[in-house]
């Protein structure tokens, strides 16, 4: 009987261990994310009154307001555009960097990795402040351009989409590089050498061998960067200024500036849903394309 029970006990043990390992995180996620999201969704169905902030109701008027107002739709589209551009730039810039990090046998490899991680030691707002010093009308970039005689009037760099994209790329790049580097480390160099040895040009080897094998990493890095860019707050506020609106700051404005919690909650839900839908769709398309 004991002998018969043993296999069963062995089979169950990993299940219990997994449950025990998952429980703390599940509890934290449930309390810290799921419950607030449910509350937020409930708020988004309430009505706004200036004096009472919100009145209990079951109405879709906040969502209707969002989708029928060209201003808010434009803010969402701008956010998606900025997130897509930033993600594309991060992947293009990050892939070669991650490749070098993965393939290098230099004794300075750890130092190089540290240099990539170093920007993460500083908060987004502080980094944005650094960009402000560079991009200001009397900032470093304009000073250099003026000194070189390339321009005669300072360029307006601050409070533009260019400044915001630059700031977000700087924030997201380390995440992208680290994600890609971890995947590229796992792809054996002999596979590349075999392709090159069989006569494939480096670009062809990249397209047909390296990229398909690295695709899980590319997808993960894309998702990570896209989500971070969609929800960016400090960078658009500090570098985009008062006239460049993205969804994150707009949600904050509704909650804190106007105390319109129902509409703020609806905006937050639209942002979350748009991010989720775009991420899932792109993930599905990429998997379908590279499954073969």
């Amino acid at each position, binding site marked *: 009987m004991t002998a018969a029970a043993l296999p069963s006990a062995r089979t169950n043990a990993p299940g219990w261990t997994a449950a025990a390992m998952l429980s703390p995180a599940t509890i934290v996620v449930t309390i810290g994310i799921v419950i607030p999201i449910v509350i937020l969704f409930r708020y988004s169905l309430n009505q706004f009154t200036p004096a009472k902030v919100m009145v209990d109701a079951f109405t879709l008027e906040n969502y209707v307001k969002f989708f029928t107002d060209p201003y808010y739709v434009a803010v969402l589209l701008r956010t998606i555009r900025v997130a897509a551009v930033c993600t594309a730039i991060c992947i293009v810039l990050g892939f070669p960097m991650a490749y070098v990090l993965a393939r290098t046998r230099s004794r300075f490899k750890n130092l190089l990795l540290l240099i990539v991680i170093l920007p993460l030691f500083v908060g987004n707002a502080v980094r944005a402040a650094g960009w402000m010093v560079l991009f200001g009308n009397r900032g470093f970039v304009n000073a250099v351009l003026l000194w070189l005689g390339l321009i005669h009037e300072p360029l307006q760099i601050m409070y533009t989409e260019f400044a915001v994209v630059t700031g977000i790329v700087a924030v997201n790049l380390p995440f992208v590089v680290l994600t890609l580097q971890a995947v590229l480390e796992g792809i054996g160099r002999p596979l590349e050498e075999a392709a090159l040895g069989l006569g494939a040009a480096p670009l062809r080897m990249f397209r047909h061998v390296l990229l398909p094998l690295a695709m899980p990493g590319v997808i993960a890095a894309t998702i990570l960067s896209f989500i971070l860019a969609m929800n960016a707050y400090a960078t658009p506020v500090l570098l985009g200024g008062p006239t460049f609106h993205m969804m994150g700051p707009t949600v904050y*404005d509704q909650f804190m500036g106007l105390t319109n919690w129902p509409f703020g909650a609806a905006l937050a839900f639209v942002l979350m849903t748009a991010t989720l839908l775009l991420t899932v769709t792109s993930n599905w398309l990429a998997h379908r394309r590279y499954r073969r």
Partner: protein
Amino acid sequence: MNDYRLNISRRRWMKSAGALAGVAAMGGWAPAHAQSGGRIVLGTWGGDYSKLLAKNIDTPLMTPKKYEVVHDIGGDPERRAKMRAEARLPRGTDDLQGLSAAQMFEMNDAGLCLPIEYSKIPNAQYLLPQMRYPYGVGHIYSGKVILYNPKLITTPPTSFADSLDPKHGSKLGIIDIQYQFTMMAAALASGGSMTNYEPGKERLMACRKAGAKILPTNEAMAQALQNEEVGICIMWKARAVQWQKAGAKVETVAPKEGIPLYISGFVIPKNAPNKDGAHVWLNEMLVTSAQEAFAEDMGYNPSVGNATIPPATEKRIGFNADERKRLIDLDYAYLAKNDAAFKEWWDKTFKG
């Protein structure tokens, strides 16, 4: 050989836990005993304002009365959100919240403020009438004036109409977070009033079309004035004084249409844990030494009539007899009712 294994029986554990709870309770009681007045949590802006509250009120006036004053520092939007979020709790976090007069009105309108018991604030007898609200007490005030750099704006402006004028092009600066006062000033310049901001919208759109710069914060405006990117704007006189001290070459003019008041004060949330302590703090806030120190350090005018301001400071921060007649209070009910619509217009139409 000793056995060092941790061997705790249930009975022993219960005893230990009881003893620990007792010690913790004693610990919790001990500081309260040491500070017989208790603890006051003060919601306030950070930076200089918080430092000066500590320097001029908390340390010299409240500590001798055995009160411990803790600052809950944050922007007013966050602190107002906190008041709303805590509204249903029997016991909130803060005993006082520092807000502008418009925000004090808004919080009271939402039913979140305790009526002030003026009998507990003897110094309130010296309060200027505009600084006395049933739901809050004014601490300091200033007025919205015109700032201009004589090097860039050669004809001195005399009115809001002169300053919010498309002729200034990109030399006119507008502060984004000051949308309410900017709309109000534009209204006063265009035949509007404190209860009708609509006439000012056309003027603002014309300025925007002419290239007026929109800067995100007061600090960004200070920098733009310093860099001479902006030559004219509207701002609190107190801030102008601070910026002049910092080296900005700007002059101030009290607009002839009227000088809108900016009042900063304190309310007591209905669920404040230490309501008596909050009243004591409000009383000390009105002590002349504290009020005079704020005028000197921050450039704001005292909210009490018995403070003595040195003539040089008075000249710098105050308003002369003629200007005092032009000080106008805001219609807070109109502002509260229309604020969401104003902000929406500002974001969607004006800033585009």
